[in-house]
């Protein structure tokens, strides 16, 4: 009955949205970036401690739907220790996955729970919003990013 829905709202996603990981500000963050979806008002701030090109620690704060919050939570879990280049490569893979549903890369790991989002075109922006913010953070961009600045 709820097939597509349980694809979208997988247990892992519901769990992360209810108990988000790394859901705090980092006092020693040397990079922060804000992401905002003007269509629904969802907004997140990513805090990162970067050592050169490597993410040493990462946290987030903000509010939004189950998809965007779980995406931010799982993202912070995934990106600790990753380099700027790796973050951008993962962004492209996640972007591809949530728009096509294709999971053909081992590196995607537990991010694969977001593959079901592609069946809900109106929700792709929710999943990708925290990713826009984290790319802005690692690139050291100051201005808030919105989901309306790019295709998704």
């Amino acid at each position, binding site marked *: 009955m709820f097939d597509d829905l349980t694809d979208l709202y997988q247990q892992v996603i519901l769990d992360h949205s*209810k108990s988000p990981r790394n859901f705090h500000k980092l006092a020693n963050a040397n990079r922060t970036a804000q992401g905002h979806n003007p269509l*629904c*008002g969802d907004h997140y701030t990513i805090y990162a401690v970067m050592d050169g090109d490597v993410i040493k620690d990462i946290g987030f704060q903000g*509010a939004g*739907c189950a998809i965007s919050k779980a995406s931010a939570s799982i993202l912070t879990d995934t990106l600790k220790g990753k380099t700027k280049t790796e973050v951008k490569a993962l962004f492209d893979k996640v972007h591809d996955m949530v728009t096509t549903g294709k999971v053909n890369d081992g590196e995607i790991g537990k991010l694969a729970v977001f593959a079901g989002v592609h069946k809900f075109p109106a*929700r792709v922006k929710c999943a990708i919003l925290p990713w826009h913010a984290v790319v802005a953070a690692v690139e050291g961009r100051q201005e808030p990013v919105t989901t309306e600045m790019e295709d998704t």
Partner: protein
Amino acid sequence: MIAETTISTLSKKMIDWESLRADFPILHQKVHGHPLIYFDNAATSQKPRVVIDALRNYYERDNANVHRGIHELSNRATAGYEAARARAAKFINTRSADEIVFTRGTTEGINLVAHAWGGKNLKPGDKILLTEMEHHSNLVPWQLLAERTGAKLVYLPVTGDEGLLDLSKLDSLLTKEVKLFAMVHISNSLGTVNPVAELCERARKLGIVTLVDAAQSAGHCPVDAGQIGCDFLAFSGHKICGPTGIGVLYGRQELLEAMPPWQGGGEMILSVDFFKTTYKHAPHRFEAGTPDISGPIGLHAAMDYLDGIGRDNIFKHDQELAGYAYEQLARLTNIRLFGPKTGRAGVVSFLLKDVHAHDVVTVADQRGVALRGGHHCTQPLMRKLGIESTARASFYFYNTKAEVDRFVEVVREIQKFFAG
């Protein structure tokens, strides 16, 4: 008293609401395997067959450009276009069809007033009074005008979740600096019905020009510009069973005649020289370029259709459904409801504890129920209420009590789904 009851029972009996559904081809489909329940009428209404046929007939038989042609088709197109203007005048009871300007919708109508009237009449230090429940379409054009002219915006407050205007503040806000008072008739996010006739009367006594945003009211209840006593009133065709891309702006004739054009081009001129142009009188002065012609013709059919049912009857039906939905939702736990407890129009906004509005809407959609989630283009109101968004069900005359029952059942399922 007895006579009134008899009349209302009679007129209710005369309308078979169920059978009106047959006039709307789009309603008879399944969405994600469930019968469609269309509860997003505040965003746009569905179109009855007579409107679709009017558009089709126009393009199959009468299509030509208006006002210039000498040939038969152009005459027919012009007659259809101007007949729609006269019909719109009757629909909102203006004194003359010359007080009706065709626009793309409510938004364009308000922008027209902000540019043509506001640009000429506002100066630094003047104030524009709005309410805190305005749609962005009745807020952003005034912010832009304030930036251009140095005028200031002031707001009549809303009283918390119940969403009523705080009329006790009106006297102190209606000062001599206020040149314009723009207000929404029915709130799209709260369902509040504002006492626009009273507000306009109080403004008029002080010589303040008034504009009523009738986007949510024109097709849902009787709207009489003369009785409201406003100077301007705007509405959209697509929310009242008409096509998208067409709207109506009413302007009191003396004001329209004194306003400069806001867009230049063909159709709006009397004579053009290399360095000087003279303009047609209102409303044609405000309709530059080839207009939307099929739009007014479709809208004409929509207005006939609605008045065939009776907008007083439609409003009663809307209110019954909204009252019933509110009552049913209020029985649930962990729900926050917005808007007035009684007397609301056909809009019910709500939030479920720990479930974001967009998640509510996504799950409801999978059950065939079309809701709207978000800020409903009323971000300042949402911030005032301390929220980001709500989920909203909005009704029209083709919706039924059985659909409301099903919707409430789906809301219960959503609570269960996200609690599990």
